[in-house]
């Protein structure tokens, strides 16, 4: 099904919103407002935006640490102020400010973020099973960096999801780098999509810089899942522009990363690509683009101002008293 003009504009606007929030968070880290760390997802926005822009509110989503999940969670409906408030340790944050950077909002179908990578896969299978039992055609989406697909949990989860034809979507956000290691030296094949073959799970490779291409492929998989046809695997090829975490030495294999590769990928910036296409199609004008840009900038500025002004817990010890068990 072709996207409507409104849908295309929504995808484009979401790319810009995510970028502005990413920039806001980089700044917040560098100025000490974020006391933990930030794994910028600059340049990778099209994966989350393309995959999540048209999810149902009751679909489930397990996002990874990259960009602290904003290209997925902001798009699924979590307000920027809530995301920032969590990073600032404010009680208005999505985890009441106790988590530093994790995301949780069960009303939006976002159950959490694993500290150990690969922790999501089996959990997602359990949610897939619950979704199947409930019969409301919800889907469960996991989006992880390519390095995480080496975990054994992925294998066990694929067997289960494929056998039971669960409504699971596994999305590989392949940014080519695992920590400080180029993934090509730690993985035997070029395409992670090939992993689907052994499980009989349909798998596709898609240009992760092209938000429209990502959306199209993911939508096909969502439709399959809602039709009880089982899980799918989609690999989105993208690239990490920033260091693994902002402020860390930007190295590969112990040496500074060369600028050339970064520049090549900057030329295929997902926002620029989408802009070019929508201008050409006449969906957007230069004036629209500036408006969208300004709107997103205002949204994030206000979110940042409000989140920062939100209160910290007055008595941290009270929080810890409730830390362990349900009442």
């Amino acid at each position, binding site marked *: 099904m072709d996207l409507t003009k409104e849908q295309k504009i929504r995808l484009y606007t979401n790319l810009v919103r995510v970028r502005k929030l990413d920039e806001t968070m980089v700044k917040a880290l560098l100025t000490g407002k974020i006391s*933990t760390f930030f794994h910028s997802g600059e340049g990778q926005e099209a994966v989350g935006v393309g995959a999540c822009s048209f999810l149902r509110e009751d679909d489930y989503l397990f996002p990874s640490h990259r960009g602290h999940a904003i290209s997925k969670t902001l798009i699924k409906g979590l307000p920027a102020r809530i995301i920032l408030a969590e990073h600032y340790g404010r009680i208005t944050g999505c985890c009441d400010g106790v988590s530093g950077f994790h995301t949780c909002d069960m009303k939006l179908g976002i159950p959490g973020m694993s500290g*150990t990578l690969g922790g999501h896969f089996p959990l997602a299978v359990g949610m897939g099973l619950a979704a199947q039992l409930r019969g409301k055609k919800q889907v469960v989406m996991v989006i992880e960096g390519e390095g995480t697909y080496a975990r054994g949990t992925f294998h066990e989860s694929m067997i289960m999801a494929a056998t039971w034809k669960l409504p699971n979507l596994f999305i590989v956000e392949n940014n080519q780098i695992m920590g*400080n290691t180029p993934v090509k030296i730690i993985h035997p094949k070029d395409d992670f999509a090939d992993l689907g073959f052994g499980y009989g799970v349909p798998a596709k490779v898609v240009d992760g810089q092209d938000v429209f291409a990502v959306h199209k492929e993911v939508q096909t998989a969502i439709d399959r899942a809602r039709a009880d046809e089982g899980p799918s695997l989609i690999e989105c090829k993208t690239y990490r522009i920033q260091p693994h975490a902002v402020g*860390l030495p*930007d190295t590969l294999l*112990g040496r500074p990363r060369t600028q050339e590769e970064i520049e090549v990928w900057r030329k295929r910036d997902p926002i620029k690509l989408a802009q070019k296409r929508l201008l050409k199609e006449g969906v957007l004008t230069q004036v629209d683009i500036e408006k969208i840009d300004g709107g997103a900038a205002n949204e994030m500025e206000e979110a940042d101002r409000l989140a920062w002004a939100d209160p910290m817990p007055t008595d941290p010890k009270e929080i810890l008293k409730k830390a362990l068990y349900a009442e």
Partner: protein
Amino acid sequence: MREVRFIQAINEALLEEMKRDETVFIFGECVRGGTFPHTNGLFEKFGKDRVLDTSISENAIAGAAVGAALAGYRPIAELMFSDFFLIAGDEICNKAAKWRFTHGMKLKMPIVYMASTGGYIRSDSEHSQSVESLIMHTPGLRIAIPTTPYDAKGLLKTAIRDDDPVVYLYHKLLLTKKGEIPDEEYTIPFGLADVKKEGKDVTVVAVGFMVDLSLGVANKLQERGISVEVIDPRTLEPFDIDTIVTSVKKTKRVVIVDEDTLRCGVTGEIGMQIMEKAFDYLDAPIQRVAAANCPIPAGWYLEEHVLPQPPDIAAAILKVLGKDMDISDMKKEKVGFDAVKAFGDLGITKVKQN
């Protein structure tokens, strides 16, 4: 003697042992250069056969170490964060720890499992844990936790030469610590505690990074006329109870400090061993300081209420002495882990911001 950082001491031990013994090799995530740059430079010296980067595969890393050991090699498996020992529980706690006995003592397991440990880094509950109680609990695993560059190098060399599986934990906040090491070759035997500071009024047994916090407190109390002896067991298995008993005979009072959870933590085990071996010498009930029974939160404003703090250590020392004193100058540890500060000046890599 010369002054080096903790991280360089680890690096030197790896270099020397890999040079000495061709069956030693290292593998894990980002070992050619990465998160904790203690393995930097090894690849350039020993090449791709002996310095291997892996993907995110803790089970395969820990298990392949067992396999390589069975086949006659001496693998060093780098697991990055000690929290991930929980992922590789089967390989470490069932295979590496138990297979020698399971198979009639016919097998050797010369493995080193290395990882960073501990909190105070404003990370999260899955990157900040201390796992010494889990490891000490498991029969068949040795465990070394160095607190100075000297110990870091000497204990790692011993760990690599040991024929049993050794868990070697380096605290994130100690990596940039400076200290003296001799120019000539040395090793430190396992099971030999080190008295880090002599004193006569109270014995503090501290594990890992808690040694540093305890020394800070001890020095402040010294000015106030309280003489604290600080003992660093250095290895929890084997465990040198004798040095502790000797100290208890002198001071008659004990405080045990550990970063792991209080409940079922190593403080309980150490305390009970002291009860069994030195009860008659004690003049007061043993006090212990450890993490609250709670996951470790991100962000200092909560973390400081969960992880042990200098004021907690000072209060325990005063309690065991039956003294009351103003300790409001003892500050909480809110340091966080500033990677830029930590690694930027090591000359290992240049910090660059795109």
